[in-house]
């Protein structure tokens, strides 16, 4: 048949391979230049004491040992960041899903609501940090003023060790849920009507529909949001940089902020690179675990990826 004639043959295969590589070349080159190369370089620098000003000296794994034993900030920073990541990811997914489900119920005003919820994602982080810094001010900010007028106790928000991370989580949800909501909404719209109707016919209510049909159908997207949420949450930098400087008492000393401080402000590029590699390993392990776990509950339409 004509189709077969067009697509087989050794010459075609070579032609195809070359063309494939040419097309994929940009990203492959990009991986080599901007990912693999730097990762190797980063590993090398992490084995030195480079301080930007003088030539680096090889010191073996001293940096890594220091981080796990004598460093004053590393362990705390991991803890703080993990606390934020867990809280932020879970709450953002939950909140976004709820909003998306609600938005999906009603056609009227959906476009406007969707834009409203997406708006904070468009505000530059410098501005929203300054804004929330002011809103959270314990003495003169709006939030405490509102809490007080409702008869509720005031909070110290960013100024107290116990409330700083929750405060940043709330701000993170405000700014970051937009994307997640839009993606969930799109996924919800793709849930096949027949399946939902099937449950209805069997006498199920919205809860059954949700659990038996909707959740499984959107599970790939949920997983996707989970992974992206995890990655993004680990990257938090602007908030500690602009709002808290890692305080109070290092309670918001986020990992990437610590890395940045160590490398760019304390001139400790070697140590910062070691911290970077540890982050990479951590995120990789977490991702692998997540992917393994996802097999239990994520259903792909056309078979697994």
């Amino acid at each position, binding site marked *: 048949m004509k189709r077969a004639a067009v697509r087989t043959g050794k010459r075609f295969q070579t032609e195809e391979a070359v*063309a494939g590589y*040419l097309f994929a070349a940009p990203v492959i080159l990009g991986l080599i230049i901007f990912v693999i190369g730097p990762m190797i370089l980063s590993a090398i620098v992490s084995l030195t004491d480079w301080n930007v000003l003088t030539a680096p000296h090889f010191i073996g794994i001293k940096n890594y040992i220091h981080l796990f034993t004598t460093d004053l900030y590393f362990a705390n920073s991991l803890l703080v960041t993990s606390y934020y990541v867990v809280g932020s990811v879970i709450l953002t997914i939950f909140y976004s899903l709820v909003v998306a489900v609600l938005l999906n119920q009603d056609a009227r005003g959906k476009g406007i609501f969707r834009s409203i919820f997406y708006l904070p994602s468009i505000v530059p982080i410098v501005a929203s940090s300054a804004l929330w810094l002011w809103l959270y001010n*314990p003495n003169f900010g709006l939030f405490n003023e509102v809490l007080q007028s409702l008869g509720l106790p005031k909070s*110290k928000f960013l100024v107290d060790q116990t409330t700083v991370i929750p405060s940043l989580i709330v701000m993170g949800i405000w700014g970051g849920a937009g994307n997640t909501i839009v993606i969930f909404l799109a996924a919800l719209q793709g849930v096949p009507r027949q399946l939902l109707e099937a449950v209805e016919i069997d006498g199920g209510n919205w809860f059954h529909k949700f659990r038996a049909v909707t959740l499984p159908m959107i599970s790939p997207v949920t997983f996707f949001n989970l992974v992206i949420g995890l990655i993004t949450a680990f990257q938090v930098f602007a908030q500690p940089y602009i709002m*808290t*400087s*890692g*305080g109070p008492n*290092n309670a918001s000393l986020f990992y990437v902020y610590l890395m940045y401080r160590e490398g760019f402000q304390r001139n400790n590029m070697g140590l910062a690179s070691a911290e970077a590699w540890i982050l990479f390993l951590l995120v990789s392990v977490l991702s692998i675990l997540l992917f393994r776990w996802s097999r239990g509950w994520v259903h792909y339409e056309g078979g697994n990826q």
Partner: protein
Amino acid sequence: MSKRRLFIAAGIVAMVFLTAGSAFAGGKSEQGAAAAGPVTLQYVFWGDQNEVNATKAFTDGYMVKNPDVKISLLHIPQANTYMDKINTLAASHSLPDLGYFQETNVLQWGMNDQFVDLTDFYKNEPAKLDVLKFITPDGKIVGISVANEIQVIWYSKKMFDAAGLPYPPSDPAKAWTWDHFVQVAKELTKDVNGKTPNDAGFDPSNVRSFGTWIQQWYMPWVTFAIANGGGLVSADGKKLLMGEPGTIDAIQKMADLINVDHVSPTPGTQQMPTAAATALLSQQVAMVIDGTWDLLTIGLTKEQSNLDFGVGVLPKMKTLATTSVGTPIVVFKASKHVPEAEQLLKFVMDPNAALPLMQSGLWLPNEVQWYKDPSLISKWVDNPRHPSEYKSAVVDFAINYAHQLPVYYVPQFQKMDDVIEPALNQVWLGQKSAKDVVLNEIMPKITPIFEGK
């Protein structure tokens, strides 16, 4: 066929990019790479629009007098991003010739041989204030603060008048005791119902205006620690004074202003969102303990919004003390034009060149004579921007009572402060006592750092 097309397309794209890209690549060309012609010096500094204008003015003036020198200004908008920037410049081998440098990192970089040794240079200059000299452990002067700044009290006359209280003293001899200061602050602190901490039913969680405010960074607490017989490190650089009773007591007294006396708001970890001027104008705070640099914005606020303000000396603890701080001008060893840079340095460090900035209230002079010689004093103090009590409350106060901050002589200062500042958060918040935090959390960590381990 298709491959060829692809190559052509890729080639065109690349060319378009490269030619357009050459317009983007406005990177700094190597210093002195140009052939003969004027020497270009790059001068790095930070500050807001006023400082930018003033700096531009005096560099323009310099260029007029020295036509063979071109000055290219590298302005960094915020002081706290300075180190990030200077490090990226260092890594890309494009450090400026001279300019500002972050106080907390000067000694470390100096010890790494990044700056020109200016000891001989300054031998030929008029006497500068000793407290402003950054000297490495091996005795080299790597920089001197271009301006002097001390801690003083800025206060709102309106709030004092409304309470019928006498203003804070501007004569160092008449400085208030700490207890008196607290008393006054209490009478100026009012909650939503107009009650002061002295009244029954005062609601500390609902204060509308505060008597004073406490800031978290090192300058205020080191100042009061020194005033109380303690400090961070002794002036000779040899003894760690952090754990001394005088230091601990001073910190506790400051924290008590917030949590026991209720006359100060809880400090944020960043600077107060409002500057001193706004706090005074909006009557949120009656007495602001802050640096003399505030005069610029406070003065402008007076002119624009009628803020009626005054300046006074600090309250004393065991003794009366204040501290000096100021950004140094360093000359980078990487510069290819050190002699020309030193010439510019001479000019920049001359109080005459900095006169506009001093008259604006932002800077105090770095030379001894400008605090002692009445004709020189009047050059920068006799103008509408400076209040009448300024000479006594600031000039005399500075020359007679200012101590040197540890950042000038303790190379490990930044590392120590990285431990101290977060730990003290707990004290300012009233969660732990100063004694507990200093002795149990701070001292064990900073002692090895100080001893160089």
